[in-house]
């Protein structure tokens, strides 16, 4: 996946810099705490939340289990409804397909609906290289694009910016991209939204090509669904003559009826609303209404590799609501940029290393960017057991093993930097197999406990740098049990 932020340091280093930024921490704390309370209230409104969550999980699992069949069915439905379906094995191919489609229209600019898939493949940069300008139209994406910034949240990519910073970006940059910010723009959210409305209006009205992703694709009917708030999605999906949607293959659901689950769980999980302001659904093209040409680009880009992992494949259930980011204590402090991917937070920590592989320093460090507290699993509307996948990925990084890359099985070597951990585990296994040695070792440890250091030397220092070593008791449990016959002879 090419969405990698080049030269990104491993998570601990990036996070270390982020937690020292007081403004960033304040912005994140304010935003995540606001949404957390609201989400809990929105979820409590529906008495069958647990059942909806279970149904969402099962629909996605069933779809993934028969993904080939549903993709073929989707292709047939979309084609029958007047759409054209393309398949892209990786980011490069998807970018090439979209670039060629835009070129064929003769246009040199496109308007974009916020889409994780096109962020992931770096579509804007690829179009730019081909002389095509891509305008982001989601408010937060606009803030990121104008500020030459990186997204730091799935739903609200500019969550790391407060209103004052957003105002400054608008005043400084809007003029270079089109209509300048109004004179005397203040930092009230309503005025900032108005400035974005005026700035983007002219782009919507003249746009000939729209680019989107999709939240869901229905195999049975060929319907695509985009869930949004601002109306920029509706603009991009209905005003242009040509619409190009780039969608990950895991976004398919079998039946029309399945939407009844996700249209209840997604808005409540993401923006904590009963329903988001606008949802658009379209099936191919409609005579006289909306785009005359519709292209659907089905994107793999590491998804089939993820599907091949028996534990990790559950990450493909994700509906990108971002509830896991908002509850995560690590995300709240480190921020989204530290994750080095368009998918930050807990879901990013399991998705990025699977989509991209664990060859880079940042990807190998992501499964460790968690305290395994499990809050992410609790709020996940499709019940992805993120801690389970984190531990699974840690094991594969530390010990190596089989994985799938670009459709081929590869054997990963144990990562460097985990040698001490592996040696400690080997020693423990040896000792636990030998009761005599274990007893001798425990006696030795108890007898010398006055001389134990508070921190570990050598490679253990990284571990004990932020932790107290546990105190060794004067007597081991096994020794106590033998001496007192299980507590029957208590003579102190």
């Amino acid at each position, binding site marked *: 996946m090419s969405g990698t932020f080049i030269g990104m340091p491993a998570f601990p280093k990036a996070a270390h810099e982020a937690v020292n930024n007081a403004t960033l921490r304040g*912005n994140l704390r304010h935003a995540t705490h*606001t*949404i957390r309370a609201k989400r809990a209230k929105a979820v409590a409104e*529906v008495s*069958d939340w647990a*059942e*909806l969550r*279970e*149904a969402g999980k099962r629909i996605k699992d*069933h779809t993934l*289990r028969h993904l080939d*069949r549903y*993709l*073929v069915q989707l292709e047939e439905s979309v084609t029958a409804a007047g759409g054209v379906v*393309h*398949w892209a094995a990786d980011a490069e191919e998807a970018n090439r397909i979209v670039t060629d489609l835009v070129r064929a229209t003769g246009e040199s600019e496109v308007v974009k609906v916020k889409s994780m898939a096109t962020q992931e493949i770096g579509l804007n940069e690829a179009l730019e290289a081909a002389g095509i300008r891509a305008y982001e139209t989601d*408010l*937060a994406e606009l*803030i990121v694009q104008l500020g030459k910034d990186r997204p730091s949240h799935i739903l*609200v990519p*500019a*969550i790391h910016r407060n209103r004052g910073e957003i105002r400054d970006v608008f005043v400084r940059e809007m003029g270079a991209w089109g209509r300048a910010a109004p004179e005397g723009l203040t930092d009230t*959210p309503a005025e*900032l*939204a108005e400035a974005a*409305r005026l700035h*983007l*209006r002219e782009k919507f*009205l003249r746009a000939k090509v729209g680019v989107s992703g999709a939240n869901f694709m229905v195999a049975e009917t060929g319907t695509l669904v985009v869930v949004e*708030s*601002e*109306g*920029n999605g*509706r*603009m991009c999906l209905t005003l242009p003559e040509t619409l190009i949607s780039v969608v990950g*293959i895991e976004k398919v659901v079998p*039946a*029309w009826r399945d939407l009844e689950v996700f*249209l*209840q769980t997604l808005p409540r999980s993401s*923006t904590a*609303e*009963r*329903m988001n*302001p*606008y949802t*658009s*659904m*379209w*099936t191919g093209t*409609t005579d*006289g*209404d*909306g785009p005359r040409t519709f292209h659907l680009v*089905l994107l793999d880009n590491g998804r*089939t*590799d993820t599907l091949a992992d*028996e534990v990790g*494949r559950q990450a493909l259930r994700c509906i990108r609501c971002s509830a896991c980011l908002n509850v995560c204590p690590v995300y709240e402090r480190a921020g989204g940029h530290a994750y080095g991917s368009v998918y930050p937070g807990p879901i990013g920590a399991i998705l990025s290393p699977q989509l991209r592989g664990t060859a880079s320093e940042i990807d190998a460090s992501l499964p460790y960017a968690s305290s395994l507290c499990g809050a992410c699993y609790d709020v996940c509307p499709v019940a992805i057991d993120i801690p389970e996948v984190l531990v699974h990925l840690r094991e594969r990084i530390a010990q190596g093993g089989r994985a799938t890359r670009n*459709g081929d099985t590869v054997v990963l070597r144990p990562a460097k930097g985990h040698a001490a951990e592996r040696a400690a585990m080997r020693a423990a296994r040896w000792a636990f197999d030998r009761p005599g040695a274990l007893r001798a070792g425990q006696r030795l440890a108890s007898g010398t406990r006055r001389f134990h250091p508070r921190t570990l030397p050598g490679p253990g220092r990284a571990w004990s740098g932020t932790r107290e070593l546990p105190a060794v008791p004067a007597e081991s449990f096994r020794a106590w049990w033998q001496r007192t016959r299980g507590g029957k002879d208590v003579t102190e």
Partner: protein
Amino acid sequence: MSSRDLVLGRVRRALADVPGEDGAPPEPGPPDGDPSYERAVGRSYLREHGARSVARTVDLLAENLADYRAVVHRATEEELPGLVARLLARRGSRHVLVPPGLPPAWLSAADPVRVHDRAVSTPRELDEVESVVTGCAVAIAETGTIVLDGGPDQGRRRITLIPDHHICVVRVPGQVVASVPQALERLDPARPLTWISGPSATSDIELDRVEGVHGPRTLEVVLVSEG
């Protein structure tokens, strides 16, 4: 090998470890005819949340629409033309967009110049129009949502998008359902659908909701009781 075959081949190899559901190989064809699919999904969730009278369901629709800043009005069929005329006048609209199959009575008392929903109009021309009046396909009480399906009294999707003021008429109780599952049962996926819950909004600044971005910033919903 085409990318299509490459991706589908990867999917099949990735799933080599998975037995069929219930140990049986999956049946081909649409999920409707597939018992393994409905068995796998279960669907133990509710079709609607709580039992309500028809009148109470309509009240809930009004409450939830208002909660997300839509302006809700109630009228009888006789009162409707007068109400629509007043809403357009209060807004100061000089033009109003009209879907091809809008019941003529709805605008019979209104002054603004009618702009008809035509394929040849450009978005820029529509941007000069202040208001639009439409019907809807269905309204959902639990979520405060109206759904448009491009029917004759609703027109093309863009006419309810570009003007800043949308008056949407809902026939109650006939067009009102309680829940999202009930709404999907009534809708035809082959039609272009727009689900609207309140005016355009954003949560992009500090994750706090602000009304009014690109879609109509004022949404007025008129609940018309069927005579």
